[in-house]
């Protein structure tokens, strides 16, 4: 008798998770359906992963391209994507997520966001996993070190520690070009900069835009050299998402011709762009 009661209890316990799983699966199916139908936003047939919102994936902090200030994510990339969101008549919502998921296309494929604007350089490898917009920013890799540390280029770092950020073009550049240098791999720019600041590493490599912005405040440090890598940033969308890509390209071109681009550039970099 006692045994039987126990059995029934166990049965109930076993059914519950199975039910929950079934419901979760059904839920997933519904979600997929909605995406396929697409949200009717703006004038175009752009389909959004979250109805009524243009969801952007980015890896914070990446000042001045995107960073948090007073509870909001702001920056150059944010203003640029806002032009697209305005056209669609929706708000931009920003999702902060590790950069390796962004640049590998995993986040876009998983439907985490509509587009990725993360100060991301257009590369052949990345192009295989996502579609890039037209370039909107020129960048090179640069070296950050403490003033007077004697670190002037990669050769002077021999036997020392160089901080790199996981999944970035700076990581690739350092791996190919920095011989006899110990590369220390960091999760995001903020952790990398902290390590440089506290002296855990001798120098850091990252895109010039963000490093110049950082040394404005941290005057003990300087950008000692730039490596002419000739990179260009692009906004990423899921492979095959033509409608959104065309809309983004249209706005990049329009902003450049109308002077809006210069305006945004000056707002975040404090000077007019040298080239577009």
């Amino acid at each position, binding site marked *: 008798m006692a045994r*039987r009661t126990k*059995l029934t209890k166990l*049965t109930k316990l*076993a059914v519950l998770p199975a039910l929950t799983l079934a419901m979760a699966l059904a839920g997933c199916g519904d979600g997929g359906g909605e995406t396929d139908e697409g949200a009717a936003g703006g004038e175009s047939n752009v389909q959004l992963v979250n109805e009524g919102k243009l969801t952007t994936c980015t890896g914070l902090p990446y000042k001045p391209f995107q960073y948090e200030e007073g509870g909001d994510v702001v920056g150059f990339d944010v203003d640029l994507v806002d032009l697209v969101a305005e056209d669609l008549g929706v708000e931009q919502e920003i999702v902060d997520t590790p950069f390796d998921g962004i640049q*590998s296309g995993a986040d876009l494929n998983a439907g985490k966001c509509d587009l990725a604007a993360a100060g991301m350089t257009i590369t052949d490898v990345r192009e295989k996993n996502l579609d890039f917009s037209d370039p909107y920013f020129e960048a090179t890799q640069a070296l950050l070190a403490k003033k007077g540390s004697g670190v002037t280029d990669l050769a002077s770092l021999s036997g020392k520690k160089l901080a790199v950020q996981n999944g970035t073009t700076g990581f690739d550049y350092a791996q190919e070009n920095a011989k006899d240098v110990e590369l220390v*791999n960091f*999760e995001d720019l903020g952790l990398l900069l902290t*390590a440089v600041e506290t*002296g*855990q590493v001798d120098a850091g490599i990252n895109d010039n835009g963000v490093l110049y912005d950082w040394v404005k405040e941290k005057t003990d440090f300087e950008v000692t050299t730039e490596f002419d890598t000739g990179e260009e940033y692009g906004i990423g969308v899921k492979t095959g998402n033509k409608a959104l890509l065309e809309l983004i390209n249209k706005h990049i071109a329009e902003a450049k011709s109308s002077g809006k681009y210069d305006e945004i550039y000056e707002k975040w970099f404090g000077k007019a762009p040298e080239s577009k």
Partner: protein
Amino acid sequence: MALSRRKRARLIRGTQYAILVVVAVVFALTADWTRIQQAFFRPEVVREMFPDVITVALLNTVIYTGLGFGFGLALAIPLALMRLSSVAPYRWISGIYVEFFRGLPALLVILAVGNGVPIAFPGAILNKYLALMVALGIVGSAYMAETLRAGIQAVPAGQVEAARSLGMSPMRTTIWVVIPQAFKIILPPLTNELILLTKDSSLALFLGASISEYELTQFGRVALNQYQSLTPVLVAGVCYLIITIPLSYLSRYLEKRGGGKKISSPESTGLDVTP
């Protein structure tokens, strides 16, 4: 209900099987298997990852965990004794410590140690192994101290009385009679703590690491970028299971053995001195 009890039980069991089958079929039909295969099972990527995934990543995970566990245990013993001390401030300090660090996410403790120490002491260069030993040790010690306290309290009072009546000092009694028996009691939960710490060691990636310092998670994520495939994540996952599944078997085995022992030494008499 017209159904007999046995019939009802059969019906319920049948429903459970049916649900299981439906869920499995729905999953099998809706999942995109070619995409899953491309993302997670690329044999050439797996081949590329060897032998470093074992000789560097798995090894470092074990080292970080082992260091953290050792340091944590060394902290936990005084903490547990302080918690049971007759001196009130000792009890308070230990209590606050345990509540504080048990309530914080492991990631925050790791970031606080890894970034906080160099900020607090300018010029200090923190060794990665040392930083993780301290951070994981602190995280583990809070749990282990509580486990150990429970273990010490579970040692039959007769054991202490017997030792004291043999003329052993309170200190000797604690060191040679109470703590060894407490450890025997808490071996299964301690093994569980080791499993938890193994997984917490993945957070080491937030402190940054050079190639020779990669543990499994960071190794997997760097490979994910390199090969643009989720296969490394799967490989790293399997490596964690290589560590944790034997540990959980060990834990269950110890539990079974410990349970048997307990019956043979009933607490009621309080006079049983079997080792």
